[in-house]
């Protein structure tokens, strides 16, 4: 029988490296973007985001000039998609509707005509942004508490519910860390910003993060009573092997769908889908390679202590 739990040192090392890399990405992002470990979108801090589609090729500097002429110092201007798309994204401070209108008109005359039907703009007052950010923090807190409650409920029948709970939460923390690190990296490379949808994806990942753990732990519970003579490590290993097909099959299906959206879906939800994809991948890893082996370490140590006491 393949011994999965035996390789736990390797798994812990990989998890450690991934968490370290994530921290590096978050710190680099914080240094690059004035203390923002994740680049914050206008949803949370206010501002205006234009996605402009021009009917002809235009120069970035010409776009910049129009914004500066309207008192928008330092707009962040990025090309979207291929050069032939003539699509640009501009981020700047809050602008009211009249100001937006004037900017669009000036872009028409001084840069190139903006195809309104293929463009969008979104503007948020800074005070709303701050309130949304507060709500978001609250949502994350509630989600974390709810998941804790759920773990407590799910493991009420296993021998050491506290331990099962703690290792699940450790795994979840590692998972969230890796997801955040990935987003920070994409923020540095691709300019991805943390918006309301990003938060939705993270909360979804948190919600799903205990699913695989629960299935394995459920099986451990069943196997403990069935194979009383086996050492705990064997039981755990057996339980993982018995459930791994299901874990992988389920993950694969979710991944098929997410990859399809990533490849063929609209550009606006790509970061959203990518976060869920990464979160789910890392969830499978942290469940099987962090949560379960941690549990083994904890239970075995106890075992040794009991044996030592018996020998003395």
């Amino acid at each position, binding site marked *: 029988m393949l011994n999965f739990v035996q390789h736990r040192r390797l798994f812990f090392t990989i998890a450690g490296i991934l968490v370290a890399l994530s921290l590096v990405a978050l710190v680099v992002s914080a240094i690059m973007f004035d203390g923002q470990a994740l680049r914050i979108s206008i949803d949370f801090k206010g501002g205006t985001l234009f996605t402009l*589609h021009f009917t002809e090729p235009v120069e970035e500097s010409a776009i910049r000039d129009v914004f500066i002429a309207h008192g928008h110092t330092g707009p962040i201007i990025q090309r979207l998609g291929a050069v032939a798309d003539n699509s640009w994204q501009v981020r700047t401070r809050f602008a009211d*509707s009249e100001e*937006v*209108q004037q900017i669009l008109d000036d872009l028409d005359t001084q840069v190139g005509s903006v*195809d*309104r*039907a*293929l*463009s*969008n703009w*979104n*503007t*948020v*007052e800074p005070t*709303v942004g701050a*309130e*949304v950010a507060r*709500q978001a923090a*609250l*949502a994350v807190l*509630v*989600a974390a508490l*709810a*998941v804790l409650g*759920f773990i407590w409920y*799910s493991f009420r029948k296993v021998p050491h519910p506290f331990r099962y709970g703690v290792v699940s939460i450790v795994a979840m923390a590692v998972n969230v860390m890796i997801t955040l690190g990935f987003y920070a990296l994409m923020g540095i490379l691709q300019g991805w910003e943390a918006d*309301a*949808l990003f*938060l*939705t994806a993270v*909360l*979804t990942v948190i*919600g*799903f993060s205990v*699913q695989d753990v*629960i*299935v394995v732990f*459920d099986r451990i519970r069943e196997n403990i009573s069935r194979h009383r003579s086996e050492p705990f490590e064997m039981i755990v290993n057996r339980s993982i092997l018995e*459930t791994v097909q*299901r874990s992988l*099959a*389920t993950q*694969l*299906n*979710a991944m*098929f*769908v*997410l*990859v*399809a*959206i990533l*490849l*063929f*879906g*609209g550009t*606006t*939800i790509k970061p*959203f*889908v990518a976060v*869920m994809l990464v979160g789910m991948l890392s969830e499978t890893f942290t469940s099987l390679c962090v949560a379960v082996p941690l549990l083994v370490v904890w239970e075995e140590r106890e075992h040794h202590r009991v044996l030592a006491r018996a020998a003395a």
Partner: protein
Amino acid sequence: MERRTLVSFVLILLLTAVAVYGVVSQQHPAWLTNLLFWQPEATRNLDFQLGLDLQGGLQVLMVADLPAGQTLDSQAMETARRIVEKRVNALGLTEPVVQIQGAERIVVEIPGIENPAQAVDTIRETALLEFVEPPANVTLEMIYALESAQIPISTTYGMTEEAIQAQSAMTDSMLFKTVMTGADLANAFVTRESQTSQPVVAIEFQSEAADFFAEYTSTHLGKNLCIVLDKQIISCPRIDSAIPSGQATIQGNFNYESASQLAVQLQYGALPIPLKIESYKAIGPSLGAISVEKSVRAGIVGLVVVFLFMLIYYRLNGLAADLALGLYVLLNLLLYKLIPVTLTLPGIAGFLLSVGMAVDANILVFERMKEELRHGRSLARAAEAGFSRAWTSVRDSNLATLLTCLILFIFGNAFAASLVKGFAITLALGTLINLFTAIVVTRTLIRVAFGSLGDWIQQHLWVLGL
């Protein structure tokens, strides 16, 4: 085959037929749409409702902008909402939504709008109160007709001198001369007339305007002075005596409510509460159409891969799961039309993700079934054990998903994040439907298959992926 299995099988077939009809057909008879009593009568239909991000449009979020220390009156908020709604409806666009969000916000959504800038102006514009003098050639009867039919009139307010001259020179001119506007008011409140106890609106002018009003009324005795709101005549009282105090009453066909609404409107300009635009979002209509096209394509690709995977990996069981999954997709789409659920891009992602998760329940069952078969159980017993043993895991993982959706929904509701809510709703709906299709439908299909082909399958276990 057991009688119970047969009954469920027939019911499932019927349900499938209903779902196929509801989802695929474009035209629905009136008697059918009239059955949808929970939908507002005017817009009862069996069409997909697309969110702003899919059909383009404008979303404006406004917040009550009260001076510090003033408390917000929910009644006044509702009045403000109604006024905004009137203005938005005046744009003549299809299905605008004007809702109060939380205690102090109003959200306006106008799908498929071509000129968002104009719409924003219309929403923000404050209504105009004018005191106007009817032109000489307009009789009282005509004024009453204009008033009762609520026909807008033209007034000199905001016009240049030359334009007024040119207009007045025409013999059939219907131009009303603006004497004063709402900007001259100091206060307005409801009171009852002492004799008839009919509700009237009492107004008080600011001191300068009061002097002007006193002089005007003394020089125009016996003439009519019309009170006009947003170019609609509200009443045309006759000046019976000079009014030196700067106080007057507006008499009209009021009940207490309409009088207080007018008083509020007069007091605060148009809106009972000053509103400030907090955020707005404009999405080009063609952009939305492209998003729909891409989402549909992504959805089909994702679904086909999931279907193929289940079929190849679990063979006969996979076929049962695929059929159940087909019904799952149909039921979801049907409910989106029935409830109706407004579809957004994240909403579609939530639905597709729920498809990926939907097979999870089946996978749990099938893996369990295979295990039982490996342990030498008979086909029928392995199948039943698969379903009953996997149930706790299925229940727990679905519960976790529903919990997540609930948190997301509450979070999305806290501010106007319709995108977050869209995702939460489709994912939750999918999870609930999944409990039905993955357990009841798949189980029935497998019982039917095992019941009729049991012996053959027992000899050829490879059809179950063993």
